[in-house]
């Protein structure tokens, strides 16, 4: 054991130190942050005792307001007050044409593929809006916990496509957060619910939030949460219920479509209030002030409300049926349906879900908080506070990934509901003599025509050695990681030349754009950029050192001989020294150096753990 104490005297070396982490539910209407304290996961309130943070940001020349303060200005200052950024995140300018008409903002400039909203404080992208919400919540967590967060788990709708996931991760980066994992909202809910109730077997999670709908079918088995299938609609939620009611009011009040942005927000607020009232009563009165001191009064019954929202509820039922089929389970096999998301408070939703699954849906958990709680539990494990924990989440890709082939058709490479991470390779060839580049278009979606799918990215493979047509064999590997994010690599088989890939995301920010935003936000905060990036590298170095030390403590003696051990210790020592006063670049290089020189040990460890996992079984048990 003496060998383990390789930290310098005076340097903190506490292997059991509790690492600070949080789970963030970044919602369309409201967001929450939760953390695990003394073994209990709970959402954190603001100083006024409020757990929810409205996902609303107001941009003023004098500064930025987030949450309740911003929400108050929604009606008076609609153009500078951005809500529902989640509906826009990871979407392209084209999507805004369909979505944007429902949102009372001033969309501008299309130098980038990312839509921007014009405000007093400049043009703002949805990523930046979400970053502000994330920053507010992480500050709340850090204030409560009394230290910086080492990592966060952020939840996303299971049905979010790649671009929407990437944009969410970009927002976290902008907010200066280390993302341990993007976790699907229904999976997070299943974790909180399943661990709490000790549930086993097949469960359905019906998650209807402010702007998104997910249905997930999971099998729970001894701490393993295996998603069998997921489905949904990333543009269906309580907001749409409100819109139905608002349109009804407009009709009743004789208002035409050309109402002011402020009026739209007033209508939506009145609609939302009516919707909430109708969860408790059979009838509710509505009053909306219309410009010039006039106001409209009326009343809405639950029955009328039901018929207004039924098309939306039906849409979600169709997704449920399809997902059950994809999961290969029948309705009878589903043991319970867990209701998540504020919009599942609507009685009509509960009724229809109950009918479809032939069971009374579970509504006894707080539908607002369960996702954040599940994310906090996962964050606590991922950050390393519960070594040896058996929990494992196996998630799936919600939409098929394909590439464009001749005639504008999509050839599916990875089909929806494939367990992630996953990697698939495809071979391409040249069709002209001496061709040195090939263009590849990656799309996501179920439809056959590329035009009906979502364009994710265009890649250009360059540097193919000159050959006759058809001779080059370029193997392109598409890999989707556990967050549902895509990466692509390519190699020319016969020459072994690594083709260069130039990624042009069809939507979303380029790396340069993020860099510029980061720089801007830092300049804004008046911080020293150099110091900040050095600090970031130091944190990364600390993380690497800690990970390696923990590994050494566990099995260093067993897996390394004296000479190897010396080699590892020396590399650790060098990194420790460099990270103390080296600049960003030096630290980065030394981290890479350390990973190279200790690579053999990392591989040995993984092999060892695989052998251990398999040694529990003997081949005999199958040879009976």
């Amino acid at each position, binding site marked *: 054991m003496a060998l383990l104490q390789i930290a310098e005297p005076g340097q903190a070396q506490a292997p059991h130190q509790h690492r600070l982490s949080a789970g963030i539910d970044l919602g369309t209407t409201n967001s929450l942050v939760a953390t695990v304290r003394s073994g209990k996961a709970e959402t954190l309130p603001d100083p006024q005792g409020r757990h929810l943070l409205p996902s609303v940001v107001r941009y003023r020349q004098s500064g930025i307001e987030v949450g309740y303060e911003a929400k108050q200005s929604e009606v008076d200052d609609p153009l500078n007050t951005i809500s529902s950024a989640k509906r826009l995140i990871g979407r392209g300018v084209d999507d805004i044409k369909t979505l944007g008409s429902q949102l009372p903002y001033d969309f501008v400039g299309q130098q980038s593929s990312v839509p921007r909203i014009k405000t007093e404080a400049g043009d703002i992208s949805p990523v930046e809006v979400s970053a502000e919400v994330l920053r507010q919540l992480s500050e709340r967590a850090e204030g409560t916990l009394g230290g910086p967060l080492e*990592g966060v788990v952020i939840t996303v709708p299971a049905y979010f496509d790649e671009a929407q996931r990437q944009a969410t991760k970009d927002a976290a980066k902008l907010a200066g957060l280390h993302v341990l994992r993007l976790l699907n909202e229904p999976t997070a809910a299943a974790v909180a619910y399943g661990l709490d109730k000790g549930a086993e077997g097949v469960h359905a999670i019906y998650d209807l939030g402010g702007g998104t709908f997910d249905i997930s079918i999971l099998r729970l088995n001894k701490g393993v949460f295996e998603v069998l299938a997921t489905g949904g609609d990333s543009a269906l939620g309580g907001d749409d219920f409100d819109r139905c009611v608002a349109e009804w009011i407009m009709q009743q009040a004789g208002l035409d479509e050309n109402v002011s942005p402020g009026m739209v927000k007033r209508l939506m607020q009145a609609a939302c209030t009516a919707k909430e009232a109708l969860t408790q009563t059979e009838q509710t009165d509505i009053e909306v002030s219309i410009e010039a001191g006039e106001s409209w009064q009326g009343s809405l019954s639950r029955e009328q409300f039901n018929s207004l929202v039924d098309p939306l509820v039906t849409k979600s039922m169709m997704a449920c049926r399809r997902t059950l089929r994809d999961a290969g389970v029948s309705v009878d096999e589903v043991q319970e349906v867990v209701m998540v998301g504020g919009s599942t408070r609507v009685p009509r939703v509960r009724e229809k879900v109950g009918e479809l699954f032939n069971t009374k849906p579970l509504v006894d958990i707080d539908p607002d908080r369960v996702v954040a709680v599940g994310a906090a539990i996962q964050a606590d*494990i991922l950050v390393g506070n519960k070594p040896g924990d058996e929990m494992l989440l196996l998630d799936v890709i919600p939409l098929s990934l394909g590439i464009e082939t001749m005639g504008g058709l999509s050839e599916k490479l990875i089909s929806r509901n494939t367990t992630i991470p996953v*990697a698939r390779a495809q071979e391409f060839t040249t069709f002209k003599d001496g061709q040195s580049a090939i263009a590849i278009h990656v799309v996501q979606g179920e439809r056959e025509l590329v035009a009906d799918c979502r364009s994710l990215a265009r890649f250009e493979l360059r540097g193919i050695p000159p050959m006759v047509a058809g001779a080059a064999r370029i193997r392109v590997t598409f890999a989707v*990681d556990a967050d549902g994010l895509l990466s692509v690599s390519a190699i020319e088989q016969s020459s072994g030349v690594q083709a260069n890939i130039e990624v042009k995301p069809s939507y979303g920010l380029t790396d340069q754009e993020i860099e510029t935003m980061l720089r801007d936000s830092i300049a804004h905060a008046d911080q020293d950029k150099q110091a900040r990036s050095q600090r970031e590298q130091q944190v990364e170095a600390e993380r690497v050192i800690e990970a390696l030390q923990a590994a050494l403590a566990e099995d260093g003696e067993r897996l390394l001989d004296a000479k190897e051990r010396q080699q590892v210790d020396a590399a650790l020592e060098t990194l420790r020294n460099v990270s103390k006063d080296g600049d960003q670049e030096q630290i980065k290089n030394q981290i890479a150096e*350390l990973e190279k020189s200790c690579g053999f040990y990392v591989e040995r460890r993984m092999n060892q753990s695989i052998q*251990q996992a398999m040694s529990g079984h003997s081949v005999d048990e199958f040879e009976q």
Partner: protein
Amino acid sequence: MLDFSKNYFDLFGLPVGYIVDASSLADRYRDLQRVVHPDRYANGTEQERRLSVQGASLINEAFETLKDPVARAAYLLSLHGVEMDAQNESTQDMAFLMQQMELREELESLREQAGPFETLLDLSGRINKQITDLVAQIAMQFETPNDEQLQEAREILRKMRFLQKLRSETERVEAELEDRLN
């Protein structure tokens, strides 16, 4: 790290053969993912995370292959040196092909029927029965396969692929009909 040259059966510590115990397979899959999955290395070094993503992807791929009777048959054939050309080869068994055409016509005519769900259920029942029969047949060929039996297995697999395709089309029609209800 994971030995990528290992075959999928060895990876799961299972004997190479067509008959696979589903629950042992699932147990071992979970045991392996518990140690290899990227979530185990969320705090690890870049290299650890990269290796674990690769390893977990391989385990997922292996599990998908061994779980599915059609994919498993193709994989087992390839281990025995028989590579199928999935795109271009098809059975020449005329009786089987005739039967497939009839099933397909039946499926097409469903859309026009009133109350098609019962027929649909009956049809997918028959398709599943045929697949189950072929699974039993191919399992026999794989017991101690010589060249002749491998060729026979290949022929059965061609038929399985036919039926599998038909089954997914049946599911698509079912989805279509359900959507029409709403």
